[in-house]
């Protein structure tokens, strides 16, 4: 028996029909056709599906679509303003924070809440803060660098050099 739900998606209110068992990530990808949110596992381990629900980062593979009823969700497609990159997106680009791009939307959504709660995090706090998001390509160094860059930008202080540092 399908359920009707109302969800605000990237700022626009939508009314949708879903099965009770439909996962939020499938609602986002298949019904809303927002394919920037990805699926990387089946045990809530990888974080590729991370989005914001009422401003909290959640793994949308472990949320039922019906749980989003009456709530507001933000996906990667909703973070930039009129196509211009936000500080996190810019940070990832300038610091080579992505290779294949598959974990990237999830990383950015997680980092979004992280920086709201902790606008000036240390490197360790960032590493713990993104430990629910797996990346197989980058080795994490530059993801941390990207988030530090975004943090500086958002606080209005000079960002560190984006040139690679070699010993």
């Amino acid at each position, binding site marked *: 028996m399908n359920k009707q739900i109302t969800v605000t998606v990237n700022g626009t209110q939508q009314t949708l029909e879903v099965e009770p068992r439909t996962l939020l990530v499938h609602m986002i990808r298949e019904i809303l*056709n927002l394919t920037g949110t990805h699926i*990387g596992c089946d045990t809530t381990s990888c974080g590729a599906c991370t989005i914001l629900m009422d401003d909290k980062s959640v793994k949308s593979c472990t949320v039922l679509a019906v749980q989003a009823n009456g709530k507001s969700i933000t996906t990667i497609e909703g973070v930039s303003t009129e196509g211009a990159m936000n500080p996190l997106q810019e940070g990832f680009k300038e610091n080579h924070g992505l290779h294949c791009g598959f974990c990237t939307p999830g990383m950015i959504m997680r980092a979004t809440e992280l920086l709201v709660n902790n606008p000036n995090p240390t490197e360790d706090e960032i590493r713990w803060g993104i430990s629910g998001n*797996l990346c197989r390509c980058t*080795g994490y160094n530059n993801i941390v660098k990207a988030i530090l860059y975004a943090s500086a930008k958002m606080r209005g202080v000079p960002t560190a050099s984006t040139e690679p540092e070699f010993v």
Partner: protein
Amino acid sequence: MKRKEDVRFLHGKGHYVDDIKLPGMLYMDIVRSPYAYAKIKKIDIEAALKVPGVVTVVTGKDLEKYNLHWMPTLMSDTQMVLPTDTVMYQSQEVAAVIATSRYAARDGREAVKVEYEPMKPLMDPYKSLEPGSPVLRTDKPNKKDNHIWHWEAGDKEKTEKVFASADVVVKQEMYIPRIHVVSIETCGCVADYDKVNNHLTMYMTTQAPHAIRTVIALVAGHVGLTEEKIRVVSPDIGGGFGGKVPVYPGYVIAIAVSFLTGVPVKWIEDRSENLQADSFARDYHITAEMAGTKEGKILATRFKVLCDHGYTDAAANPSKFPTGLFSIATGSYDYDTAYMEADAVYTNKPPGGVAYRCSFRVTEAVHAIERITDRFALEIGKDPAKVRMENFIKKEDFPWKSPTGWIYDSGDYHAGLKKVMEVVGYDALRKEQAEKRAKGELMGIGLSTFTEIVGAGPSKDFDILGIKMFDSAEIRVHPTGKAIARFGTKSQGQGHETTYAQIIAEVLGIPAENIQVEEGDTDTAPYGLGTYASRSTPTAGAAAAVAAKKLVDKARKIAAYLLEVSEDDLEWEPGKFSVKGAPEKTKTIQEIVFAAYTNHPQGMEAGFEATHYYDPPNLTFPSGAYICIVDIDKETGGIHVRRFVAIDDCGNIINPMIVQGQVHGGLTQGIAPAMYEELIYDDDGNMLNGTLMDYLVPTAVESPKWETGHTVTPSPHHPIGAKGVGESPTVGAPPAIANAIIDALSPYGIKHLDIPITPYKVWKALKEKGAI
């Protein structure tokens, strides 16, 4: 230069295979065997067919009608697509459910009832080789055992003589367990067969689209799918690492169903299936030996390997190299005697192995040589850095012929080790270690000085299923001076859209921003063997440079015509020709290209394009010197990586930022098997850690803050002196970490531990030696 491809990924506009939705598309889910070895008594699909949304269920018997139930592997063995009577590994594909939605397909899968008659699986490769063991491959007529092949390299008698007379001989058994690539995107496809036009478009997570197209034509040509009727499209891929090279049964079943129904069929595996059924990596049981003098000179090495291939040899090696490039195991040291042999065996495990970010088996080879070198140093009581420094091949001795016949192109191993030792402050660290040891504290320093071998490969020795391993570039410049370049390789995150543009820009002088790079569509890209084994820069990168040079040659002719001088009167700098002695008389490359379409010399072919298929004259030999420092908690066995410095030499560097990124990523995939990852089976053939809850992929917490640097010894035979780097860190890191941990424990008589070295293994070893 920052990456051109990032924009789409950052906006969530990457185009991965699961993003593809075609009208009328059906979804496929696969029923898998819970048993590692069993006879199939009955497959009951009646209940499944009644599930709303289920369209059909396909079994081995259905595929048998079209002779599609078995297929060749890349190593010319055979593999089941769907079984008709026996399953050979846990999670093997048994039936496929096709439905109108993803969820209905899963419902249908749950409703299929299979009756099995379980048999006792062969899980131990040593047992599998024992005479009298049940023969697993009963599908092979006349097969009387589970032995697949035997391989040898080097000089057996000469090696025996040297070992017999050497002062010091060390021997060490080492097991390199099965691991999985775990790219964050799993494997999948959309098979779209058009019945009216007899044309198949296969959207697929593949690192080698052209090779796959040819394989499909070989397997399905007899039903009318000949090669010109097949288009393979590799869209954006979320990580490959070698795991997206093999042809998995899921792909073939999807093609078969689409072919029979004329409707697109999507198959996306979930993570559990990916871990439990896809081709694994490593699984080598190695006996390593080194002979030397008591002063520390290495005289010879000897290696014996048992290769566990699961139920079929579905490795992705060049055909003449069943153990890949394992014969690089002689390492970075100057000695002339070595012998190695390997035997491969069938077991009831998933087939493989893939070349997981290791060129081809180079991870196994480097682990063996770097561990046995440390064992040798420990045996003679000499500092492992000294042993290495005194045995390195000298810079001036390159090109250098190894005891197993490789011609190493160039290297400066002394400079690399010297640099990394300076950066970490090696002597001070050894002092610190001595002080800590006096207090009973555990601190370890581990080295890895490796020679990699990549860029497969020269046509005289290298082929996959007979197809030579050249690669290609096709460059076409438009009238307004912008270009499109297509390649036979396929990036899965390595940044080709940026680096290939940079190579062409450097030769031709058109800005990299103006060069569009494309890969992955077999209808338009020139034929190539794909991206794995760090081969793109050495092969397709070289092809780009040569093709761009052909364009410079054409440009010269046009410039001479436009400037009304002879070609010899012209001087070239990337971007423009000028007249010698009259530097104000120039033509830019853009003006020249425009003329190629509007004002070309009579008799010359119009247009401005060049293609090159590059057959590398040799492999390239990147190298590296890594040092890892660990502190170990004696009470818990907890291992803390204090510092890890990697000095890599990949020849000339095209994009330093991308090279560093590759090193970071490879190092994390190197610490993973060293400390966290292994696929574990029990005696009944159950995989005990087949989900990401139990298979420990490093997070940002486990992954150290890598420090990287480089030395540069260009490859003398590569057009731009570059060597490739993507896999060096995955190859070089595990022995550095293992050596560090074992170094920390060596005061207690612990000489070796197999990776992954976990706190439990450390604690157990210390307890056994009475240290705690």
